[in-house]
């Protein structure tokens, strides 16, 4: 599970914006906005982390019940799969 080549995230005017460049842009037009947590998960995915590692990393950053973090990660991954962003 990894973010496809060509997707990049940049912060513009305080918003974390994901776009597809080059070949990836042929299948994905437009942009996705990420909130702080989503950006955190995105960066981990981009670095090749698996779900368990991401949950661990989130648990260190955020004071939230583990089940909630797991469901946050699951939901976000499902969303990314839904828009065809993950390999």
């Amino acid at each position, binding site marked *: 599970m990894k973010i496809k080549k060509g997707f990049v995230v*940049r912060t*513009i*005017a305080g918003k974390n914006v994901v776009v597809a*460049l*080059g070949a990836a*842009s042929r299948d994905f037009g437009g942009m996705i906005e990420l909130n702080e947590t989503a950006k955190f998960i995105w960066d981990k995915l981009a670095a090749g982390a698996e779900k368990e590692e991401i949950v661990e990393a989130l648990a260190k950053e955020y004071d939230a019940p583990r089940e909630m973090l797991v469901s946050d990660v699951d939901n976000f991954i499902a969303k990314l799969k839904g828009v065809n962003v993950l390999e």
Partner: protein
Amino acid sequence: MFVIRMADINIRINNKYKSAKRLCADYIIDDASPIDMEISVTDEEIATERGEIDEQFSDGYCETIAIYRKICNRFPLEFDGFMLHGAFIECDGRGYVFSARSGTGKSTHVSIWKKVFGDKVRIINGDKPIVRVIDGKIIAYGTPWCGKENFGENASCELSAICFIERARENSIEEIEAGEAVTRIFTQIMLPEDVESYEALAGHLDVMLGKTPCYLLRCNMEDEAALVAYEKMKA
């Protein structure tokens, strides 16, 4: 081959068809001028443009589109600029870009400004101005590519505001936050192919939105639409 000066950049264009030179007539300078950018397009690139628009357009027309795409792609990284889809006008020495989805009525709206304010208003580019970040200032420029109505002139002005337009029954305008403007602006720019150019573009957008107030104008096609926008955006 001919050379144009556009957005303070000298560009040599190695065209195949006459349409390009005709389109650029107001921007042509001496062939011997020093060159900042050189543009050639292939038959394949011309064919790709035709695929994006419509079969019925001529090779010459499709070449002009291919040329501008290539020019715009070079701006973020090399010349601190980018193409912003919108109608760019000057009024009282202030530059305004009106941006909207195609078909919303940008051209109609700026025509209303012209009708209401007369010589106080110049339509510098009806469709695809170039914006550059120069010494911390945001400057917008006319270009030969200015839309089907051919509204445009070879001029530039500091950008004072960006105004997004939506159609409505009544006229109203509000200032919007830079963050909201980001979402709207992404439908109005051309993304480069490579990451390096995109990073440069993202940086320019961040600077522009940090300095330039953005508005959302909901408007009809009456004269009042221009008056409402003018009153809110003037200095």
